């Protein structure tokens, strides 16, 4: 699939809703000891939503980069690389506390249940993103076409041609 701007936005949201959210819910369910815990689930969901949001903002940039390539394509390797860049940027900002809705420990206050500035968060957030990233990236390699047969001709957009 060679993405168009609309295709990028739609596919990103589709994968966030149908892969990202369910995988995150399963992840926090196990993390919380096989039970539902809103206070653990929310930071991870917001974290993933922030990455998705940053991705939506970057998509026009990617499309611009595509127009400088003769084939106006986007190699799978770039997709792979920039997915981790998006994660890295959001996570780095979260650790410094610059993203208000992602909790970090503040001196003199009770530390939050999920503290993005803690060392434990490095492993957990990476694990979480890896679990989301693997199925979404694999889906882009072709399996989505088995459900949306026109998707590859529409540059990643859904619906008819």
């Amino acid at each position: 699939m060679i993405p168009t701007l609309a295709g990028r936005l739609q596919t990103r949201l589709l994968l966030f809703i149908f892969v990202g959210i369910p995988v995150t819910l399963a992840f926090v369910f196990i993390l919380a000891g096989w039970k539902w815990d809103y206070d653990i689930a929310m930071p991870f969901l917001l974290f993933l939503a922030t990455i998705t949001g940053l991705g939506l903002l970057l998509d026009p940039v990617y499309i611009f980069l595509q127009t400088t390539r003769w084939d106006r394509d986007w190699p799978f390797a770039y997709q792979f690389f920039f997915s981790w860049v998006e994660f890295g940027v959001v996570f780095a900002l979260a650790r410094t506390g610059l993203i208000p809705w992602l909790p970090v420990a503040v001196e003199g206050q009770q530390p939050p249940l999920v503290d993005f500035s803690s060392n434990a968060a490095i492993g957990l957030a990476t694990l979480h993103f890896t679990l989301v990233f693997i199925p979404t990236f694999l889906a882009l390699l072709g399996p989505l076409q088995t459900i949306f047969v026109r998707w590859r001709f529409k540059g990643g957009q859904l619906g008819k041609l």
Partner: protein
Amino acid sequence: MIRFPVRFRVRQIGIDGNTMGNSRILLCEEPGEFLIGKSEDSDVPLTGDAVSRRHMSLVLTTEDVRVRDEGSTNGTYVNGTRVGEQVLELGDQVSIPGWLLELLAPAESEASQTRIAGVEVDASLVSRLVITDDTSPPPARRNFPEMEFADKDMVGIEALRASGHPVEEVKFCAVGGGLGSFVWVDHLRCYGIPASDIRAIGTEEVCYRTYQRYCKNSQIPDHERLRSNSLSRPDNIWGFPGYAMREVGKGIGVKGIFQVFGEPTLSESYTPRAGDVFESLDIEAKRIGWSDMLIKAQVLGLRKTSDGRYAVAYKLWGGEAHGEARNRYIVADVVHLSTGYPATRFVDDFQSFITSYPDSRAQVANAYEPHDQMYAEAERRNGPVQVVVRGRGIVASRIIQRLHEARAKNPQIRILHSMRSPIGPRDGAVFRKARRLVRNNVEIQPFNWPKSCWGGDLRVEYENAGEEERGVMLNQLGGTTTAERSDWIAIAERGSEEGWYRPVYGNISNLKPLPSPGPDQPDGVQVSISTTEGNEEVLNADYLIDCTGLIADIRRSPFLADLLDTYKLPRNHAYRPTDSGPQKGGPTGLRCTNDFEIEGLRNSNGRVYAAGTITTGGPYLAVDSFLGLQYSAIRSVDHLVTENIHKVPNLGPLRSFRGWTKWMTGRQP
């Protein structure tokens, strides 16, 4: 039993495909063989650049009348299909470039033998061309399908039935029988149409036979790789899993997966092996019941019917039936045309060389025609061999690689690579901000169009563009390119260093035969090149292999020419860039809508769609590719769904996924 004299009507065909001048009658009084060609000692000498000296023979016995191609360059066609030797039936049209011969019915009486259209012709010239002085169109027509079709743009079903020819009614009929037909039928089947509602008509048993022939001739045997993507699978409408993954499953290796991951920037683009593509098509053909739907026949004509359908006239090809029993009609609601390259035309200087010097025919070849003997001879020869390879496309790359392989057997083979002009690293084609890569004076592109023409932003932009803008984009994005393959680059670089490969720049100004320098020494070919510096460089070569490609001209297909004339169908046009903006050039493909419908053939509920090279210049750039055929198929079948007239069910996410699981498990759709 054949009654003599046997009569042929001979007509000359102009470059536009229309007949010119008076028609003539060829009378053959007795059994025998009559040579037709440009040579003066032919029994029937015919003029024309594209006619070979010994082009074909008419072989007449008391049992049958045959036509036999005598190894002509441009081939002998019977009703539009290239033949080697073929028994003729009354009304069959034999064509060679510029000429059309029609086998007429025997005259009713001795007296009328030499009367055509009531005009007496000179009967002393038997077995020779007899020129009638009659300017009105000759009355002798091919009986089928002209009795029902001629001069009509609409026929009634009753008239077809009354003709006595078998009439079959189906919903969907694919005309062509090649890859384009197969992909369209595959979509119909996967959308849920039963095989019993579909017929495909073509002369080949196997849908990829013609494609495979072109591959073999251009030195891509089944184990070599094509220029195609992993996910472009003509046997799988979903394109997943791709050929790279299939190779892993078959134990060929995992390299392809990493290529797909990094292509085209971090690794060379993955491409599938020809044999794997054909094998997968065999499997899909069996799954969808292709052989039950296929009618092995030639399509002779198509007309609208008065009840909003189409009558397709066809003649069974091979098989048991004889004579009139071979002529049949199919009446279909929806017709799909994908007839491929109608006939091949070579570039002019090459064409005139082979017609002027037929004795040197073995010294030159177009890369798409059989020329394996050149490599065999070059490998056998115990001495120097010089080969001129002309052109810089993907075919030239492969031919040079083949010659490099031949060097293992005869290290004295030298390659002279003739290209029009050098292309520097910054001279690649430009489209807005992007510039095409150049390596070793050849423009590099993974596939024959920029990738986003298939499904990215260029597809959308091109589809939405007006006719002139499309023409401009086609010019900017098209052009001759080759794939970036390290082995090909290495051949050019090592060959240049070691002196057995040399690029030569300039226009070929003259080709002429080179007489043999001595006994046991073979003939050669002299290639004169006006170099870019203004010099004349003369290359004395043993062989010339022309890799500049084929020219498609849809009017060369009698079937399409008849459709164009009968329904006055509009065509797409090429546009040439000039200083004062784009200028309209010659006609290209059949005009069709963005859904690949040919609007001029719409007939109340009836619909005709097209695909493949006959739609060149239309709503999609890469029509002549595996993925392009799938694109046009999905567009046209979706159009049927949207219109909801012919009860084609939609392929939504759930049905699509279910269909795919059936494909994966090899169950019928």
